[in-house]
């Protein structure tokens, strides 16, 4: 029997994205890239962004990692594609807040949409970094170019 916390952590949507990650490809015409690394578990990802004006026209990633980090990266790419940079940054803050804020219960998570499936990760403190790595890498990719982000800095 699998506990309800585990069911909450490994929801269908998360398992689906981890097995069939969306936007799982390198972009030949990327104009921003960033690498993310979690030395604790060896999660590695490379993010490709094509930003035109203020809009994330295309996004893709490559790498390997646990189910949480893969699903989170896949869903991050799906949710910021076509959005403006400032909208993506707002999602970053809300996602981060959902997983690290103590007041998550009081938060209005409606803007996060499907991304709220990761709320259960906050019950597993050692896994929070698996879920946030993609978003930190996105932020680095938008802010600068070619920088490696580590969860251990």
């Amino acid at each position: 029997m699998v506990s309800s916390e585990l069911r909450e952590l490994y929801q269908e949507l998360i398992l689906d994205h981890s097995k069939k990650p969306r936007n799982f490809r390198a972009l030949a015409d990327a104009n921003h890239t960033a690498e993310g690394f979690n030395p604790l578990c060896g999660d590695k990802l490379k993010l490709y962004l094509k930003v035109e004006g203020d809009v994330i026209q295309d996004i893709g990633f490559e790498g390997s990692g646990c189910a949480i980090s893969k699903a989170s990266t896949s869903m991050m790419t799906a949710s910021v594609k076509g959005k403006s940079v400032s909208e993506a940054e707002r999602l970053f803050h809300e996602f981060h807040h959902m997983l690290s804020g103590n007041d998550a219960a009081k938060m209005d998570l409606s803007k996060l949409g499907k991304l709220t499936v990761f709320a259960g990760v906050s019950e597993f403190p050692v896994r929070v970094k698996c879920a946030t790595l993609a978003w930190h890498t996105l932020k680095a990719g938008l802010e600068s170019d070619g920088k490696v982000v580590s969860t251990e800095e």
Partner: protein
Amino acid sequence: MAGFKRSTAVDSHRNGTRASFDAERHRKDFPILNEKIYGKPLVYLDNAATTQKPKPVIEALSRYYSAGNANIHRGIHYLSQKATDAYDDARTTIQQFLHARDSREIVFVRGATEGINLVAQSYGRNRLTPGDEIVITGLEHHSNIVPWQMLCQQTGARLRVAPVLDNGEVSLDAYEKLLNDRTKLVSIAHVSNALGTINPAKRMIQMAHRVGAPVLLDGAQSAPHLAVDLEDLDCDFFVFSGHKMFAPTGIGVLYGKLDLLEAMPPYQGGGDMISAVSFEKTTYNKVPFKFEAGTPHIAGVIGLGRAIDYVNQIGIDSIFAYEKELLAYATEALLKIPGLRIIGTAKEKASIISFVLADVHPHDIGTILDQEGVAIRAGHHCAMPLMERFKVPATARASFAFYNTKSEIDQLVKAIHSVLEVFG
């Protein structure tokens, strides 16, 4: 007292007349094994990371702090003498446990890592010159890689790595070919923490000696699980960590052959490592004190001595035989799980099993097992080059101690089935 109980235990068990090993009885000595994790009994299978502590060790620490605490080698009062005696007794216990010739060959350090760094800096730094070579193997822990890389940067020496075969054994042919008259130091794991491989240490040491190279044997994973006879192995240095053998963290041992230690400069300067200091000149103390600058981890040393007494009472050879049984049982049970692959299938293995499970990342395995109360390690095991060698980002690792039981292995197997249920 530091007894030489080991030999009796060895003999009665070598003859195959071993009575069955009473793990259940030994478990009672480890209070933490009664803990519940998320309401489930703890199944602790992360012994290669650190082991749990038996009551006699916990009590020795408590007794030291509540009735014997004092600094050593400096007070003339009763407690200081008592602490000094306990500290010195532990050194003798360890010397006998490892079959070293002389207790002066036992240097207290923080752990295996510090022991290796001490040898790199004190032995290696003054001796190695550009063009010299240091040989290690492909299955080393980072603590037996990085200190040598640092030494190579400092001296211009070159690091050479003996490759690992598909079954997790070191290629002895390749290792032997790497050895030559430029080899100035060899440093190898006795037992691999990531795969469990037991290296044929004696042969590897002989091969290195043939080219005149001294050998450091990293015993972090061997000392707690199999009989180490330094006289027979003839390695030049040996290190291990107390916390991996039922003693506190922050204490470990460097063994070095007396003539080598005597010829080496101190590693750190301070109190205890000197015999006379003036502003013009300082005369260093004798070994081992030359290498024990500052107030040491006295309680840790006493705890380590007690842990070894405890191991001696059970008998290291009985422990080895029992853990071998656990390993065989676990290997067979795990291999029945669909999609499970064991990494590291050397003929000689200690009770460590690294595995991967279909497409499931080890980190996810670790989380799910943890929910079932089963503690394992998931990750690169501080052996990233080895993970690279086997083309896996990480593995899940179950590592056993003599207080583990077959029914705990059944729990492990059950928990892995939960992983399959989630990822099915």
